[in-house]
């Protein structure tokens, strides 16, 4: 993707949700109008993102715009390429669905401070798109921090003791690592390259740093973007599960964690460049950390009884799939990890929606309480089964393709052990998800409990159905995602061992 055109569309796409804050706050007394504003903004955002698709996918040009020029080389600017657009597409399409879901959820539970909730939700979406479209490391960092801060009020929405400790952990990890690791790394890069932080396909650091410095930078940047949940900086994610479920769903299945892995993808592809990393031969450190995270988090997930916590640990494992994939540096692995962003997003958000729907309908949080729910809530639990399949990587769901690519990539890179890690963890995924499905459909409902039990509000059920269908659809039409991922390799030939 060497050519690029200038356009303000990325800025507007990013601003669409930020500007929506104003009507949301102004219309705080009119819940329907307020939520209408959210929808309109979501639709506008999706349309704007989609409108970039033909240009990027069809003409293979990147879209650029510069907001502020800081020094002659450094700027706050946007550049939309395949990876960014892929991520933006996922985030903006799921926002609409989540908005619908949150209306059902928040109204269903009669939560307080709904205006604040919707406003910060919109802000975090802006930050997410900002990350997706960043053209350089500084812009990326800016929006990364904005996301950390704007999600804090969402995570601590309940304002109780649990939320307070959860929120504290959340910020400690996210802000702490980004200030302590990412920021110095950023400035170090800046000093080394003589002022440029612009992402480049061949990596802007290539040729500027030595072996040791590169390793330090790689570690600093990878752990600095700790939203990716790489161990040992993962414990914010389970802690953040104190948030209302829509927040967990969108932010901790899609926006926040995916921003983390997206940043790491950018670090590998844009900052160092795959070629350069191959030359230095340092990525395997990250591979092993990621592999460790994959296995350990799956094991921890098995022992969790709280449904959302289990999902959280599952998320940690799945994120590390992506990190592991990109650190393998082989073409298929990298493409697979890009696709996995989308595939996992659809699968995991379905699972979270289901967890929320169960909570709204029955008030149950624990897996051991779910016996026999499948008969009473067929849609919810059916969607749950599909989501579980997608995350595990079973057909007919989209998860299959990304896992397939990842495993292929591992084999391509000649890392048989890591390939086995993928396989084993997929099995573990099955082991911790399917008992839930089994429990829901085949175990009897406990005697005398919840006689009037029925499905969650429609506003909750529709979104989870939609995302479940989406997961299935992605099995049949993965082409779009693959094309977008492939765009990242046009200028440089696929790296093969």
């Amino acid at each position, binding site marked *: 993707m060497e050519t690029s055109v200038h356009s303000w569309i990325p800025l507007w796409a990013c601003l669409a949700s930020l500007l929506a804050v104003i009507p949301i706050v102004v219309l705080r007394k009119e819940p329907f109008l307020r939520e209408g504003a959210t929808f309109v903004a979501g639709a506008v955002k999706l349309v704007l993102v989609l409108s970039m698709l033909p240009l990027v996918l069809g003409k293979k040009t990147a879209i650029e715009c510069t907001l*502020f020029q800081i020094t002659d080389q450094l700027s706050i600017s946007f550049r939309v390429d395949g990876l960014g657009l892929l991520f933006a597409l996922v985030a903006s399409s799921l926002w609409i669905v989540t908005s619908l879901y949150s209306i059902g959820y928040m109204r269903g539970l*009669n939560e*307080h401070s709904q205006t604040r909730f919707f406003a910060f939700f919109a802000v975090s979406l802006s930050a997410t798109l900002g990350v997706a479209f960043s053209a350089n490391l500084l812009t990326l960092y800016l929006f990364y*921090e904005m996301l950390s801060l704007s999600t804090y009020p969402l995570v601590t929405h309940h304002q109780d003791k649990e939320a307070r400790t959860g929120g504290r952990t959340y910020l400690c990890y996210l802000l*702490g690592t980004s200030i302590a690791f990412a*920021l110095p790394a950023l400035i170090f890069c800046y000093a080394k390259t003589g002022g440029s932080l612009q992402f480049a396909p061949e990596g802007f650091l290539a040729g500027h740093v030595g072996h040791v410095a590169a390793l330090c930078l790689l570690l600093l940047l990878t752990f600095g973007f700790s939203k990716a949940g790489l161990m040992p900086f993962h414990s914010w994610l389970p802690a953040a599960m104190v948030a209302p479920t829509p927040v967990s769903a969108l932010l901790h299945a899609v926006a926040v964690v995916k921003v983390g892995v997206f940043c790491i993808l950018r670090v590998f592809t844009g900052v160092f460049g795959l070629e350069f990393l191959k030359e230095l031969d340092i990525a395997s450190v990250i591979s092993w950390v990621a592999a460790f995270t994959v296995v350990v988090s799956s094991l921890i997930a098995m022992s969790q009884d709280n449904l959302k916590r289990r999902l959280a640990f599952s998320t940690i494992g799945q994120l590390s799939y992506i990190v592991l994939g990109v650190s393998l540096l082989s073409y298929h692995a990298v493409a697979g990890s890009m696709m996995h962003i989308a595939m996992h997003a659809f699968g995991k958000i379905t699972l979270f929606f289901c967890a929320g729907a169960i*909570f709204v309908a029955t*008030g149950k949080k624990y897996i051991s309480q779910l016996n026999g729910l499948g008969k009473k809530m067929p849609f919810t639990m059916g969607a749950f089964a599909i989501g579980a399949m997608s995350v595990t990587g079973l057909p007919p769901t989209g998860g299959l393709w990304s896992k397939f690519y990842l495993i292929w990539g591992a084999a391509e890179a000649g890392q048989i052990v890591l390939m086995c890690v993928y396989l084993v963890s997929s099995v573990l995924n099955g082991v911790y998800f399917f008992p839930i499905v089994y429990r829901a459909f085949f175990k009897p409902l406990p005697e005398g409990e919840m006689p009037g039990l029925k499905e969650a509000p429609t506003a909750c059920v529709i979104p989870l159905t939609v995302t479940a269908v989406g997961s299935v659809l992605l099995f049949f039409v993965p082409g779009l995602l693959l094309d977008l991922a492939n765009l990242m390799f046009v200028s440089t030939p696929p790296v093969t061992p």
Partner: protein
Amino acid sequence: MADQSPVIVVVAPLFAALLAGLIGMREKRACLPLTLLGLVVSLSAAIVLFRRVLAEGEVRYFLGGWDKPLGIGIELRIDTVNGLVLIVIAIVSLISAIFSFRPHGQRDTEKNMHFYILFLLLCAGLFGITATADAFNLYVLVEVSSLTSYALVAMGSLRRGTVAAFNYIIMGTIGASFYLLGVGYLYMQTGALNMEGIRVVVNQPDVLASKAVLVAFVFILTGVWIKTAFFPLHGWLPNAYAYAPTTSSTLLAPLMTKVFVYVMIRIMLSVFGLVWVFEHLSWSHIVVWLSVIAILAGSIIALTQTELKKMLGFLIIAEVGYMVGGAWLADEGLWGFKGAIYHIVSDAFMTSCLFIAAGIFYRRHDCHDIASLDGAFKRMPLTMTGLLVGGLAMIGVPPTCGFFSKWYLIRGGIDSGHWGYVVALIISSLVNAVLFFRIFEIAFFGKKPVEHADHGDSHGHGEEHAPAPAEPTGQAPMPTALVALMLSAGFILLIGIFNGQIMEWISLTVDPLNPFTKTPPL
């Protein structure tokens, strides 16, 4: 009048103060408009002046027309660095004047006239310090600003404020006297009082190794460090700022230490010259390590404080460590030096914003404790927004100016290989994060968080029934106070966004003097 703008900047507040004294005896209400008028005139003159500097380069102004030989009269010399600082002083003091619409926290409420006279003369002193190119004139103006600030601190209604003011006087006098002594040594060795005159002589080979010049440098530096509250010499600052009247501290805290950091930079730049300071002296390692101690100590002591303003006071000490360390980094591109100057600008607004927010809280609660802020987000959303912006800037979150000043300072640290400094900066950012999020948490949750036993069945309260904390006792914030807060918060963002431009301006002056580049310094 553009030719006369350098002096107009300085004397406009002076005239306003004298007129306030004449008129204020009869008509108390005239004081505030006069204050605003004087500061607006200064600000516009400063802007005119800065444009002139950009267009023509360094502007030199000879008082009394005594222009030759050099140093007969007193000279004002404005380059982009102090032109910028002049504008910052003007804006911050204007914001503070807007905030002081109804002075608060003074012992005697009838002393508005005295307050505004002192306020204006403090501004005049600070403008003068910044503009002057004469080492002794600097001393006189330092005393102008010091005396006014002693009085502004001592006007506070708190009992401990008086003791703080006394300590401030003692320390301040030692600082100013050390400076005076240093200037005396320099005069003895060089026979000049004009900064440029001194620099020319000091850099001559036969004077270069003079012990007396070295002693002069040590005395001047120590004196200025006492005034900036550089760590082991900081004793006077936290109490003085914490127990000063609200309206005084919003002027003193952002400007006093910053202007004296500027004085240090001016002395390094103009009185001794960077060649002398960095190449002849080569003390940068020692000073940077001192600043590391200052940063860490300031941050860690700030952690133990329970009073908002006192905590901010210790944060200022850490920030002073940033600037002093940055200025002494001596990296090749002088990024640390330029970063320190940029940080003067950004820290002035950050501190202004935070102290204004703290002032509003104090007015509201009659209590400085951080714990009294429980649930403040609900009660005073605008004020908290201001505090949030200021806090984020202190932490260094983009796109606030705090982020960019850290950016340049850390870059200087990396370039010069002072890893200790870089680590200290990062640790202090983390400490700031902890400090401010502790406040935000208290403000967001309230002291006693509402217990939700189980969400499933206790979702009782809708939006209207949020838990209302006990209403505080003080007065509601004045609208003007909020305007001031929003202004300084806005400037925090503006300066962050236009940091490239500001750095460019700073470079215009600093780069030609860089001793590490090939071109010989002027």
